[in-house]
């Protein structure tokens, strides 16, 4: 509830969600896989369910698909409660991680499977299968068998099979995880194109934050069976709500410290390690509160000690290591006994030799203060 801000929405007069999950809990023996999860997928949007391995993404998807039953909570699809419906009676289809094409059927029979079940006439089946194969850009492979396909092709066929029945909602469980990086990038764009072309709502499970940022209208970030944060990709990246979100989406330097002073708009934080002081927007913190300072590597500037620029935060340090990543360089700067900052520089930037004393600087506006959950519970 109340998470509609900045949300991509399409015409939906009834205002009903494509998927509405309310307070779903699920336990397996002693493990709690889902602990009160609620989320909405607006019609026609691409929503990513993002989180580390074992946080309950697959479990949630299986509950929505009808393969698992929630211990508590409810699922509605386009306004209809589906909790008691078997998978075949739910208006959603699923693309599984292991594409699970039927090995005994041809590609045509695989894709036409839902139509054959509905006894759609053969001619219409042929036309619709051809249409689907065009959509996934694999025209003319009807007669092949699944064993004759590459991983990427098999995944496209699985997608075509899931879409041929024209579901209003499609669930995808890490469908690209088995593909190599290059193919995965290409398929990300393909999936997004297909989703936009058909206007189907997608709920897409991934543990790859970059994938989620690239593809989604909306990201639901999960951690240990709960939702850690949700919002547009820009929101969750620019304004992480907690340490977990900050660390999981994109890279971040996370520096624990104590609030030394605050006037309500800006705060000064003394870092626990090294004792340097950092200025940041207050973000509701109180004096003496333990916090974590989060700064993205691309916000950091590195210069020789004393070089002038307008940044409020400047910390002396020593360059310890440099990693070349092709388009950018990643520099590691030690600013305390056990504290190393990661900064990002263009490849053209003036090279500074390892071990040199440098100054790391960044603007107060690019600093985020997050409550230190490890130190103060519920504070």
């Amino acid at each position, binding site marked *: 509830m109340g998470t509609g801000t900045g949300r991509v929405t399409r015409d939906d007069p009834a205002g009903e969600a494509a998927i509405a999950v309310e307070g779903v809990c699920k336990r397996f023996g002693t493990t709690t896989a889902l602990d009160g999860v609620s989320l909405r997928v607006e019609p026609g949007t691409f929503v990513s369910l993002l989180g580390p391995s074992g946080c309950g993404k697959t479990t949630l998807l299986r509950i929505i698909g009808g393969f698992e039953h929630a211990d508590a909570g409810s699922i509605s699809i386009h306004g209809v409660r589906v909790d008691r419906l078997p998978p075949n009676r739910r208006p959603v*289809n*699923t693309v599984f991680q292991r594409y699970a094409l*039927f090995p005994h059927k041809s590609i045509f029979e695989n894709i036409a*499977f839902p139509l054959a*079940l509905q006894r759609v006439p053969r001619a219409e089946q042929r036309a619709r299968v051809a249409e689907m194969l065009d959509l996934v850009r694999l025209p003319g492979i009807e007669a092949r068998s699944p064993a004759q396909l590459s991983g990427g092709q098999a995944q496209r066929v699985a997608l075509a099979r899931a879409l041929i029945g024209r579901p209003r909602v499609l669930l995808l469980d890490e469908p690209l995880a088995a593909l190599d990086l290059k193919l995965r990038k290409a398929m990300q764009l393909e999936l997004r194109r297909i989703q936009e072309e058909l206007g189907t709502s997608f709920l897409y499970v991934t543990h790859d934050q970059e994938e989620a940022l690239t593809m989604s209208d909306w990201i639901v970030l999960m951690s240990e069976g709960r939702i850690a944060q949700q919002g547009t990709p820009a929101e969750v990246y620019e304004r992480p709500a907690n340490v977990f979100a900050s660390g999981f989406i994109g890279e971040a330097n996370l520096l624990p410290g104590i609030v030394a002073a605050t006037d309500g708009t800006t705060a000064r934080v003394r870092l626990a390690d090294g004792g340097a002081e950092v200025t940041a927007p207050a973000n509701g913190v109180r004096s003496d509160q333990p916090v974590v300072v989060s700064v993205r590597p691309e916000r950091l500037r590195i210069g020789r000690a004393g070089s002038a620029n307008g940044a409020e935060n400047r910390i002396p340090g020593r360059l310890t290591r440099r990693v070349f990543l092709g388009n950018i360089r990643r520099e590691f700067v030690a600013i305390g006994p056990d504290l190393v900052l990661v900064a990002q520089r263009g490849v053209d930037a003036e090279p500074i030799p390892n071990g040199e004393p440098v100054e790391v600087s960044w603007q107060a506006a690019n600093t985020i203060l997050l409550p230190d959950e490890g130190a103060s519970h519920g504070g």
Partner: protein
Amino acid sequence: MAAERLGPALPVQESAEVTVGRPATPAWAPTAAQLAPALLFLLVFLVGPVAVFFAYSFWTVKAYDLVPAWTLENYQKALTEPIYLQLFAQTLVTAGLAAIVTVVIAYAFAHAIRFHLRRYQEALLLLVIVALFSGYLVRIYAWRTILGDEGIINQALISLGLIREPLSFLLFSRIATTIVLVNFLIPLAILPIYAALQNVRDEEIEVARDLGATPFGAFWRVTLPLAWTGVFAALGLTFIIAAGDYVTPQLVGGTSGSMIGRTIASTFGTAFNWPLGAALSFLTLVFVLVLLGLVKVGSERVLR
């Protein structure tokens, strides 16, 4: 050709494509070497004796002596005399019934341990194997005491007052033969079916359900076709064993439950008519194989 273009710097690979120099080992050679022992065994102990009996089936007997006459007389006799025709029919019906009932029960069992009782699968499979070891004759006699006039079923029904006279059709009938055969064959059928069901992945069934199949639809269109090799193997195995059995019909079958196997045995034995016995055997084999072939062709059309 490719090797020539690439020049002599490349090491010559031991593969079928290399055309330079001495021809490499042909691709089939290792396969043949692996198959040889089994082939040899089959040749000596199966094909050989079968070929000998096939030859006998065209001979005749004169004064208790086999005469190589090369005649079709035995086959003609086997295919025209009503007693043999009736026995063939009875054999195929009883064995077919036993095989079908066996496979249905064995499938249900294998399906249950594969999909619902996974935790107990090892214990249950062990029980199946133990059942294979329990004596064949012991079980036949056990069934006689269960099904007979003085048996448990009749006595129970009488003491309940449901019947006054024992139901005599229970023993010495086709029902008795079928029950005993099924009891004997079930463990044999469970093993291949269970092995085939192991190859059916949960996801394949879930996908089918997801795409709109009912539980039966998923079974009929996905699980059964994927497991069919094993199910058909079980069907073939049990049908062949049942059609060739001659102890069970003799001990519990009576007249209506008797089968060709017993007649073949006595034709070879007391009657010493090896040629006719051989012809009857081959005809049984042909009928069984033709029926199985029809099932195979039919099933491939239906299960897709």
